[in-house]
């Protein structure tokens, strides 16, 4: 029997990777989208872990919702990305500083 903490450890690792991917990545906006997906997956992992160990199926139901939202979000994100590429000609994160004050 794999103990509960192993799952949580993997989940935390995934989350950390996702966050690090957002922060460290300087090049490609697609990587950022992927990192967000990674964070969502880590959350899913957490849900499933607790659902399994606490014998409560609500967590697993929730995972389906999150997957759906994640898919929708990815679709929107990619659509924005395509428009961005058409507008600016590249999708480099370093160039996206229109918010600069």
């Amino acid at each position, binding site marked *: 029997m794999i103990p509960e903490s192993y799952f949580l450890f993997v989940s935390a690792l995934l989350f950390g990777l996702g966050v690090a991917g*957002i*922060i460290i990545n300087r090049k490609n906006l697609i990587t950022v989208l992927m990192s967000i997906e990674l964070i969502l997956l880590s959350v899913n992992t957490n849900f499933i872990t607790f659902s399994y160990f606490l014998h409560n199926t609500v967590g697993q139901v929730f995972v389906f919702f999150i997957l759906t939202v994640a898919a929708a979000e990815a679709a929107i994100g990619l659509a924005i990305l395509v428009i961005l590429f058409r507008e600016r000609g590249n999708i480099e994160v*370093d160039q996206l500083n229109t918010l600069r004050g």
Partner: protein
Amino acid sequence: MDNLLSITIAVMLLPLAGAIVAGLFGKLIGRTATHSVTIALMGIVFLLSIYLCNQIILKGHPAIDATLYHWVASGPFQWDVAILLDRLSAVMLLVVSFVSLVVHIYSVAYMHDDPGYERFFSYVSLFTFAMITLVLANNFLLLFFGWEGVGLVSYLLIGFWFQKDAATAGGLKAFIANRVGDVGFILAMAVILMVFHSFHYSDVFAAVPAMSNQTMLFGGHVCSVITLICILLLIGAMGKSAQLPLHVWLPESMEGPTPISALIHAATMVTAGIYMIARMSPLFEYSEVALSLILVIGATTCLLMGLVAVVQHDIKRVIAYSTLSQLGYMMVALGASAYDAAIFHLITHAFFKALLFLSAGSVIIALHHEQDMRRMGGLARSMPITYLTFAIGALALAAIPPFSGFYSKDMIIEAVHLSTTSGAHYAYLCVLAGAFLTPLYIFRAFFLIFHGKKKIHGPIYENGWTTLIPLIALAIPSVMIGGVLIYPMLFSTPHLLGDSIFVLPAHQWLLSASASYHGALSMAMTAKASTPFWLALIAIAISWIVNVQHASIGDHLKSVFHRTYAVLVAGFGFDRFNECVWVRGARALGAFFYQVADLKMIDGFFVNGSGRLIRFISNTGRLLQTGFIYHYALVMVIALLFFVGRFLLGF
């Protein structure tokens, strides 16, 4: 009672009505109507004053002390507009209304061509209103109202010809010098309110004997309450009555029209300080220190200003310095506790000084506003009546018997001689010297104007009757009033001023003089035994020799004593001192505050500084706004870590 009260109120308010009519509707009703209305009102006021004087003094009606309405009621304090008509204020009322009436009439001719004719009459009536309020007040607050009122009108009238720089500057100088005195007066009122809890004369005076030993802290020093109040009041009187060192404004005030110099700056307003101290005699009697101070200040003013008057060239300035010197005499009399003598001299001085000013004004009109005596001379034949009236004024001022000034001045000198208040010896010497100087300068002016060679070409004509009638009206009391009033003022029991004046038994110096008094006539006859009389004669003789017989002696003396002469011409440097210390000091202080406090501290540090601070914070803050999403994400993560850490570790 009711009847007298309403007459008193009428006396107070009629000049105000005149001022309002002349001031607001003057242009509407025209010149003739303006002066008719104001002169008619002043005539009524004068007649009513005679009636009041008759009732109060001759018929012995008790003093009227009545409240007209409550001005302010604040906590335990109640301040009223209330009047006190007693012997002292009745006498003052008569003098003020008479001189004011005469000046009103005189101004018709003097101001004839002036564009500000209506304004002038409005001011003069307003002045009369303020002066009568001052005289009739029965509490310190109303006294202060009148006090400031006359100060204001004095300012307006000195600067009457406001296109002239000298006139506006003179007005400003008078206003500022008077404010210095007013600080003393306001502080005195504050102390009175603190100690006596009332502004009413009667309350205060009744409580004085019990307070005479009380002390209080003032500026870190323990001092007697009464002395403190008296000295502060004295500072107020020094400002208004132009005593050293606050006298500098009076010569400057001669920039105003001559009738004003006669009314305000000789006969009435400048005597307000004298009147005030006489009115406060129950206070001053209990303060030896204040009395000595009054003696010394009065005597010094009397002597120094008499000296300065000898070297002046402007006819009006000679008379102005003479006024200062005579006010010094009155102060000396007050200091010697001879309040009656001071008021006596005030009355005689009001008449003969107004006479001198108006005569000088008559000369000035005839010479088309020429005031320099060096360019006059030999006017006696062309202007006989002015010549005569000026001579009467000069003789009265020079204290030649039997003219009015002789009696009052002689009594002051006598009182100082007998007084043992400390400083009296010094004062005695000063007033004796003054008795020599007074004839010297006034007869110098007299001889320079009316005798010697005629220096102005072309015919000079005597003025019309509107000018001459006031001169004659003033000349009569200038001759007679001294002899008439000396017995009732000083020697009868009770005195003319009766219980308005309070003198401690130990201070009644003139009591011993009354034993040797055998009537005004015999006093005039025995004048040859008195020192001041001979001093006066010698002075007149000297000024005849120097100014008429041998004019070269004057120039010779001038070159021998050129240094003394320069000091005298500079008026002992009071103006220079004020200019250097106060004016430049105030400017330097102002510049310092402007440069450091205003520009650097308020503008630089607070106003611009807060703007700069915000800009600095914003500029630093905007470095955080890189626009890179990953920076924002990092900040979020760091914050998250911080709060999670805080939650877990509990710090």
